[in-house]
């Protein structure tokens, strides 16, 4: 071990001694602060963990609220779709009632047949028969190229 600092000390108050003393004080302060901050770290760790858990809880609450709103929307949309379907059923039945008389007069009435095909398309959601048939067999028949 060198006795350099002691030599500086006995020479009296010089710049280097002052600097050394200041640095020693700063180093001592930082060392003491490191020791004193140790328990604070425990509290900080607990606080941060608590904050993270609270944030997660808030996220869950937000998600639950959004889920409930979504469920309500789905339920109202389902009710509206059911109402629309019922309207269609009533309308189709009304048209069938009106068509009953035409059918009694002439079961092969072309307007009646076309209306029935449109009704079938409206209730099944598919294309009317003539729309799908045109590109294949019917088209060949119209052209006269079928066998």
């Amino acid at each position, binding site marked *: *071990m*060198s006795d*350099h*600092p002691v030599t500086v000390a006995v020479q009296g108050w010089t710049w*280097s001694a002052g600097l050394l003393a200041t*640095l020693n004080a*700063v*180093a001592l*302060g*930082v*060392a*003491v*602060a*490191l020791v*004193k*901050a*140790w328990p*604070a*770290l*425990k509290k*900080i*760790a607990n*606080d*941060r*963990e608590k904050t*993270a858990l609270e*944030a997660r809880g808030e996220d869950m609450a937000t998600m639950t609220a959004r889920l409930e709103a979504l469920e309500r929307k789905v339920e109202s949309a389902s009710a509206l779709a059911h109402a629309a379907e019922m309207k269609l059923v009533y309308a189709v039945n009304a048209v069938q009632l009106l068509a009953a008389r035409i059918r009694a007069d002439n079961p092969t009435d072309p307007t009646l047949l076309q209306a029935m095909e449109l009704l079938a398309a409206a209730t099944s959601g598919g294309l009317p028969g003539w729309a799908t048939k045109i590109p294949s067999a019917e088209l060949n028949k119209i052209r006269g190229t079928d066998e």
Partner: protein
Amino acid sequence: MLWLRLINLAGWLLVLAYMAPAVLGVLRGKPRDGDPPRLIYAAFALLVIGFNLRMLAVPESQIVQAALLGLSAVVSVFTLRAARAYGRGLDV
């Protein structure tokens, strides 16, 4: 090399001065949430300053070397503890 050392000293002295309020806050026993990391910065600045000053002024001093190495070891332990206490936090 001397100039580099002096620039280093100036920079890290500024760091040390900037972190002084945090160190004082811990010493007063009223640490804020951000004080432990700043304490680490201050201790690290002190290490850099100490090693530089030792090379400049007292290259053969064993006691200064021992003190610096001891502080360095303490700072490493404290850094690990602080890193564990803070965790990585939330996504940014």
